[in-house]
């Protein structure tokens, strides 16, 4: 027995039509530009769709306003480095145990302080004891942690200087990315989830900046802004394919250029992997949404007070869905770093990694998984294609102007900045004229 009103055929055909339109965009890009670039956009679109699913889980199902998405994406990337990069036994011997001990000491300090806060009676004594524990713990942590970090960073700083990874297969790093993001989300949710919505937004905005700051500055972790390249890949390298006799014979059979084909094959393999993850997450999310759990989440979202009166533990459910959503974002972050083959903390920008994902969810239709996926594909395509389209447009506008005039040069330079403007306009238009998104919640 289903308690949900069955989707009417009208909305189903609308969904199909919209997805067909997006497919046409990608196929069109393939014909007009090249299949290589179309597939390149598709791969990031798949990852973006997964990120949008994570945000949709938090915002669409539960109404949690998390604008710290960038932080969880970055944590997923960090997980790839820690799981799959080459182990560095020297670095680990030099400072590994010290770093672990230092971090444990730091966590223990906070744990003891929290426990004291809960146990001791309210009053001056509690404040003094807590402060003493925190200050003492901080100095103890620095005393253990700092020399260990110095030792690790002194280990061949030109090439390494980081703690190294576990050397495990990179596909394993994706769930690890989810786990790392989930762990961070637990800590964040424990402190910040009680806040009301716009405070939560400001708090998560700050957390994301802190995560990026840590990844930029803690060189022992993943070499900071010196970046870390050469991460393993789950698919073959193009150059290896081009040397492979089997592959060359087949390319000759089909009468295609082996160099272009190798790159397309690699991109298609990535697309297959990413699509599998996306489908799995969509199916699980849909099942969750249709289960009693999903109905409870939406009941909480729509009226917290009455849900609480029905005996639902709102805080716990919020924490749960915050962790789940962040884990999905973390998985997507790990996939993105795998696709890039490198971790570059300097490139994480909240406009691109937090607010753009929000645009995807709002435009696609919050509360609807297919909507979030559609938003991910559509907005990512737009984000990439706005630049060439803008350039074409500017060429048209400036065609009548004299070559070398500063206005012409300025306008053509400015075409590169059309992206943000377009995204803002798209977001505002959808919010105004179709506030529930392109594929509204059923």
């Amino acid at each position, binding site marked *: 027995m289903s308690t949900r009103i069955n989707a009417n055929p009208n909305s189903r055909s609308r969904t199909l039509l919209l997805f067909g339109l997006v497919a046409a965009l990608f196929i069109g890009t393939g014909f007009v530009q090249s299949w290589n670039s179309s597939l390149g956009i598709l791969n990031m679109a798949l990852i973006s769709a997964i990120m949008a699913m994570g945000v949709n889980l938090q915002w669409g199902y539960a*109404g949690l*306003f998390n604008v710290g998405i960038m932080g969880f994406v970055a944590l997923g990337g960090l997980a790839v480095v820690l799981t799959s990069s080459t182990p560095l036994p020297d670095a680990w011997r030099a400072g590994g145990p010290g770093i672990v001990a230092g971090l444990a000491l730091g966590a223990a300090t906070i744990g003891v302080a929290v426990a004291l806060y809960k146990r001791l009676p309210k009053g001056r004594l509690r404040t003094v004891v807590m402060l003493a524990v925190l200050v003492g713990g*901080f100095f103890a942590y620095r005393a253990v942690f700092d020399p260990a970090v110095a030792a690790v960073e002194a280990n061949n700083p030109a090439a390494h200087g980081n703690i190294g990874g576990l050397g495990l297969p990179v596909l394993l790093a994706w769930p690890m990315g989810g786990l790392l993001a989930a762990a961070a989300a637990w800590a964040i949710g424990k*402190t*910040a989830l*009680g*806040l*009301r*919505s*716009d*405070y939560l*937004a*400001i*708090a998560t*905005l*700050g*957390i994301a*900046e*802190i995560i990026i*700051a*840590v990844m*930029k*500055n803690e060189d022992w972790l993943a070499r900071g802004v010196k970046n870390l390249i050469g991460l393993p890949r789950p698919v073959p390298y193009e150059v290896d394919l081009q040397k492979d006799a089997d592959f060359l014979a087949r390319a000759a059979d089909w009468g295609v250029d082996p160099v272009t084909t190798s790159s397309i094959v690699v991109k298609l393999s990535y697309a297959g992997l990413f699509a599998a993850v996306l489908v799995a997450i969509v199916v699980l999310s849909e099942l969750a949404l249709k289960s009693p759990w999903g109905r409870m989440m939406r009941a909480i979202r729509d009226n917290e007070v009455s849900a609480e009166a029905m005996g639902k533990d709102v805080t716990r459910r919020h924490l749960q869905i915050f962790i789940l959503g962040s884990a999905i974002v973390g998985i997507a972050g790990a996939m993105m770093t795998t696709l890039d083959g490198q971790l570059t903390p300097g490139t994480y*920008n*909240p*406009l691109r990694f937090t*607010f753009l994902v*929000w*645009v995807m969810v*709002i435009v696609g239709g919050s509360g609807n998984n297919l909507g979030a996926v559609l938003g991910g594909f559509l907005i990512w395509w737009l984000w990439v294609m706005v630049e060439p389209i803008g350039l074409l447009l500017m060429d048209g506008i400036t065609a009548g102007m004299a070559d070398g005039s500063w206005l012409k040069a300025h306008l053509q*330079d*400015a075409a590169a*900045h*059309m*992206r*943000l*403007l*377009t*995204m*803002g*306009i798209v*977001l*505002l238009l959808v*919010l*105004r004229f179709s*506030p529930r998104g392109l594929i509204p919640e059923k």
Partner: protein
Amino acid sequence: MDILNALVAFANFVFVPGLAYGAQIALGALGATLIYGILRFSNFAHGDTMALGTTFAILVTWGFQALGITFGFLPTALLALPFAIIMTAAFVLGTDRVVYRFYRRQKAAPTILVIVSLGVMFIMNGLNRFIIGVGEINFADGARFVITAGDFRAMTGLTEGLAIKATQAITVVTAVIVVGLLFWFLQKTRTGKSMRAFSDNEDLALLSGINPDRVVQVTWIIAAGLATIAGVLYGLDKSFKAFTYFQLLLPIFAAAVVGGLGNPLGAIAGGFIVAFSEVMVTYAWKKVLTYLVPESMAPDGLVQLMSTDYKFAVSFTILIIVLLFLPTGIFKGKSA
């Protein structure tokens, strides 16, 4: 033991920079808190409003400089400020007319307004890049120092110097004047009183015949003015880079929340609390301590609690502590 030199070092590296930074944050937070009080949402586009206002000021400054108009030993940007404020206010009023008014009439939930402000943020950010680009721009001219470290040393004979940049002095003086004017306006004028009434209790204010559209318009104008002034002062003191302004959102919100959202006095106090904590936690205290303790106990390390890159962590920690223990801020702000 050399208390005098320690004090001067403290003033030079902590107090003076903290005071100027605090004034800039406080002005930014005042704008954000006014919008929260009257329009009842956290405006995520506030950092970009600051950036856009500064962009206008830079353009006018360049125009003045091209015409050969300067402001003597003061930066030309101060002369450009009124024009920039008018342009920013006109832009913001346009945004309100085209975007926000629709949702206000619908009585949309605050979260929806926050998401709408994200859209406005994208547009402002894009426009700003469109107009002036993403590079770093220095537009300060005029005198560079009120007093240089060398002059101070020569004057006092101390080993430590105290340098006060002209932009720091200008920041503090401007902030005092602006805050004075704002409070006079809010306390004494009819419009200011109606704004406070509207902020305290919308329904009662409407019942007593206050025109809500007018209150909202005045609020936007004041917020645009404050944002432009804060942005220009910050840009004069450091330099202008659009992305840095976006990131100022965090300390600004932290200041507004610490002081109690919707409370102007709180926003000022919050601005200084956030700024001084940031400077003090990220300052390497070695120099000051070396003067204070006997030579044998002089510290080896930098005695820096956190590296400067973690300054966001400071605003954030203050924010979380205040929200957990004093949910409505130090001065009573709005809750729920």
